[in-house]
């Protein structure tokens, strides 16, 4: 093999469909399009097997095959002469290929229908340039991977993380750092939601709104699939699948096939072309999911993927430590709420309605939040209305049986951060301002009318 496969990784992103050529034992040739060729190592690739087809029957009879791929950066065509080696139906290679298919299928509501049956591994015998498809210098100038640059960038991000005081500043420092240091301009972090099998967006960067509170279910979209599998996924060329999914979803909702839900849409790009999702895992426990996306078709190269995956483990520990630190801070706070003289409420300018049955808060008729953060906001506003209190502690929330916090891992600090961010976006004249470790102050810039419904 004259060209090392390692230099052709751009060709294996599925951005431009590959073609596969085989021949039956009787000499009948076959030509077919392939969605994806997976790089295995410097001498092997794998092809996805989703449906029984002629190509697969042919290689069972005759192991010679030919794959043509195109480099999306330069448009150079490459020809890989292959020899079939084996089929894998389990293991890291199979999982990696299956997850990618699953993530795309989930956008189209096709999860479980379009699925990987096997990863067929081929030895690459010869690699050569396709003469009729000559390349040209990359359309997008890229700095070649540089280990020193990467290490310095990681050092700088690490320094920013160390300076962050609290969970909120930490999450913002991570996402801002990914943009300013690595150039990943659109990113979000989701943490496990209140209900099992759900994620909730806690921090975003690069989108018009802060997106806090947007929910994703395990197995849905790239974040949900990453959370379910606890493995990283990189996808290029998503546009068509995404448009199809949104169109299908809208039509289904119009016909009433999908129940209307009080779910906040994910803040992602309208037309993402590249997505990179990384699980944030500490000792086997999912702390969250980091998702980076771009409108550029092949934005995340091998070095980007490796860097973000490396970062994932470090970020997971940093986030978990910040959560534990804020939880510990409860003990440092005073044991009781700070008394305050009842204050006259200003004239009502906001109508806050709490639906007890749904545990949901609406402000001026618009959905704000549900679950524990909704109950906390209602408690705080009621206390302010009745007693004029403005100072609160996390400890008193934990001790309040009406809030029904779980005894183990209640994630109260995360829920408070989520509540603060939803208020910032939807109702900035009601603020919960941290006033010390384990404490916060209610600030109202106008009157609030409180209405409770069953």
């Amino acid at each position, binding site marked *: 093999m004259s060209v090392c496969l390692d230099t052709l990784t751009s060709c294996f992103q599925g*951005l*431009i*469909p590959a*073609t596969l*050529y*085989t*021949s039956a*034992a009787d*000499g*009948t*040739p*076959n*030509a*077919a*399009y392939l*969605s994806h060729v997976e790089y295995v190592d410097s001498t092997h690739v794998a092809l996805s097997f989703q*449906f029984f*087809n*002629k190509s697969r029957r042919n290689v069972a009879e*005759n192991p*010679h*095959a*030919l794959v*043509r791929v195109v480099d*999306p950066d*330069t*448009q150079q*065509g490459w*020809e890989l*002469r292959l020899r079939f080696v084996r089929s894998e139906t389990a293991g890291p290679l199979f999982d990696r290929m299956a997850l990618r298919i699953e993530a795309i299928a989930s956008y189209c509501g096709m999860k479980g229908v379009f699925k990987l049956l096997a990863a067929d591994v081929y030895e690459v015998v010869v690699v050569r340039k*396709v*003469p*009729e*498809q*000559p*390349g*040209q210098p990359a*359309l997008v100038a890229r700095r070649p991977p540089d280990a020193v640059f990467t290490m310095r960038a990681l050092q700088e991000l690490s320094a920013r993380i160390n300076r962050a005081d609290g969970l909120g500043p930490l999450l913002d420092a991570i996402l801002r750092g990914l943009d300013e240091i690595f150039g990943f301009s659109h990113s979000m972090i989701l943490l496990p939601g209140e209900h099992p099998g759900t994620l909730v967006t806690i921090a975003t960067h690069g989108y018009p709104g802060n997106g806090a509170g947007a929910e994703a279910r395990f197995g849905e979209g790239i974040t949900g699939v990453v959370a379910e599998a606890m493995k990283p996924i990189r996808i290029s*060329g998503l*546009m*068509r699948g995404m448009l199809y999914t949104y169109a299908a979803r809208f039509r289904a909702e119009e016909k009433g096939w999908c129940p209307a839900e009080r779910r906040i849409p994910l803040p992602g790009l309208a037309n993402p*072309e590249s997505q990179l999702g990384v699980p944030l895992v500490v000792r086997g426990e999912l702390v969250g999911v980091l998702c980076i996306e771009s409108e550029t*078709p092949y934005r995340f190269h091998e070095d980007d993927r490796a860097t973000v995956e490396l970062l994932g483990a470090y970020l997971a520990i940093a986030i978990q430590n910040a959560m534990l630190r804020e939880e510990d801070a409860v003990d440092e706070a005073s044991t009781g709420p700070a008394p305050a003289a009842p204050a006259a409420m200003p004239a009502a300018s906001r109508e806050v309605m709490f639906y007890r049955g749904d545990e949901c808060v609406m402000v001026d008729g618009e959905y704000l939040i549900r679950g524990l953060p909704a109950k906390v906001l209602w408690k705080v506003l009621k206390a302010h209305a009745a007693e004029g209190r403005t100072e609160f502690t996390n400890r008193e929330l934990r001790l309040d049986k009406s809030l029904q916090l779980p005894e183990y891992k209640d994630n109260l600090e995360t829920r408070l951060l989520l509540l603060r961010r939803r208020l910032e976006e939807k109702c900035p004249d009601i603020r919960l301002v941290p006033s010390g470790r384990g404490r916060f102050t209610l600030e109202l810039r106008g009157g609030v009318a409180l209405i409770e419904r069953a």
Partner: protein
Amino acid sequence: MIDDALAAFLQQGLAINIGTRNAALEPHAAYVPAATVEPGGTHLTVFVPVVAADEVVADLRDNGQAALVFARPEDDRACQVKGVFESVRLAGDDERQAVQIQYAGFMRQLDTIGTPGESTRQWVIWPCLAVRLRVTALYSQTPGPDAGAPLS
């Protein structure tokens, strides 16, 4: 064999590739910028860039077996045409415009799906050999469980 509707699909400007095989059953391939279906639909001519033609034409002369795959990038509709070799000649200047029109159609398809077509225009599409094939079978290759099913 190829009806009018299918002929219109095949000639609109698609991603087209030809596959052949040698005596050792090793595949060869070439990019095809254009194909034209003859009236009656029993034969078609595919235009293979001269720079890419050596192995494919050698195989065709040796055993005559060919497989062509046509795909429309904007909706992934695809089909495979199997054929046997009839003849080969250097394409004439009067055919050049037809090749360029189909190639431009393929470029527009690439632009539609967000894959930059401009740089692809550096691909070598002329001069071409005109390879005449007799159609022997047609198969759907649109992705999904029916991929590979014969087209009636």
